[in-house]
């Protein structure tokens, strides 16, 4: 073949294969541990493990943190407001999926 094929990239599924410690989550999202505590208190993040040193966050936490950051900076909501928004967004997603069934 004369055409150059780009290399095949293999990624990880964030929701399934990725787990992060508190330190990893902080460095990945460039946020402070204090802010993570706030998100955990609000129920936005639900780590496994009893103490913060043994916490393991699912990969989807990265996505949720980013979403909260965007909602805070673009809409001026606080963490509690962002928690509510996230919950409603997820419910909306679920309903949209169900609606697809009937919206043929």
């Amino acid at each position: 073949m004369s055409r150059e094929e780009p290399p095949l990239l293999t990624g990880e599924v964030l929701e399934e294969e990725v787990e992060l410690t508190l330190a990893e989550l902080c460095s990945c999202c460039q946020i402070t541990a204090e802010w993570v505590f706030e998100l955990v208190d609000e129920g936005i993040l639900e780590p496994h493990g009893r103490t913060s040193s043994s916490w393991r966050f699912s990969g989807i936490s990265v996505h949720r943190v980013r979403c909260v950051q965007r909602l805070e900076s673009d809409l001026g909501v606080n963490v509690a407001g962002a928690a509510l928004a996230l919950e409603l967004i997820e419910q909306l997603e679920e309903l949209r999926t169900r609606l697809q069934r009937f919206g043929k």
Partner: protein
Amino acid sequence: MEFKDYYEIMGVGRDASQDEIKRAYRKLARKYHPDVSKEPEAETRFKEMGEAYEVLKDPEKRAAYDQLGANWKAGQDFRPPPDWDQGFEFHGGGFTGGDASRFSDFFESLFGQGFTQTAHGHPGMHARGEDTFARVLIDLEDAYQGATRNLTLRHTELGADGRPQTRERTLTVRIPQGVRQGQHIRLVGQGSPGIGKGKAGDLYLEVEFNPHAIYHVEGRDVFLELPVAPWEAALGATIQSPTPRGKVELKVPPGTTAGRKLRLKGRGIPGQPPGDLYIVIQVALPRADSEAGKAAYRQFAEQMPFNPREHLGVRDA
């Protein structure tokens, strides 16, 4: 380049107060925020109003923009007048630190310079590149078997002259088996390049399924509406059903009613645990378009007294 009417975009008059502008922005932002909105143009609209707000919320930029005059119309061909911004001093601190590369050429031509300086960073500074996001459309079958997909991504980066340029690149990505709608595939180091010695950011691909002609998906579970004949539903039958993995023989129990779900355990999207496949039974009626067919229906009616509207409190005529 096209003139952009920032007041029109924000839906406010040219004499709007700063408070009114803020209120208009918040209202539009809630409507078009890409995390919240599924309106088809949400992302474009949100970017556009972000740009408009960037200018109008900042009294310095707003005054400079106003100075262009009220006679410009949106979409009109625009060249900034020479030295148009003379006498205006833009202060970095008062802005949101917005990134000019996300904004239009129009914005760039008016306010670009001050921004590109901040985007460059200080010499010798190192920072991790930004994470980037894209969507990847796959078919349900890809989630069952795994697949590879070619993606062409467009991104903006600062060229050697410090001006943003659009670049295109093509990636071939492995779609892992068992991936589900809304999940994200992380490709480490495929995001924006870092500054200085900083590492590149990551690329996140949000997985979305193409609508399927016969299946629909909820989480790990897959649903199929399967039509059966009235006698198959009433008497029970062994019939063939398609599944995403190929045909199966399916036992329809006697007395099956429309809407009944038959679960095929573990035949949904693969994974730990795998999802289930639900066959939702639909009863299809044969058409009475022949004499023999009509006779069969008449006989059916005689032999089987049946009022389908009983629960509505009405009797058959």
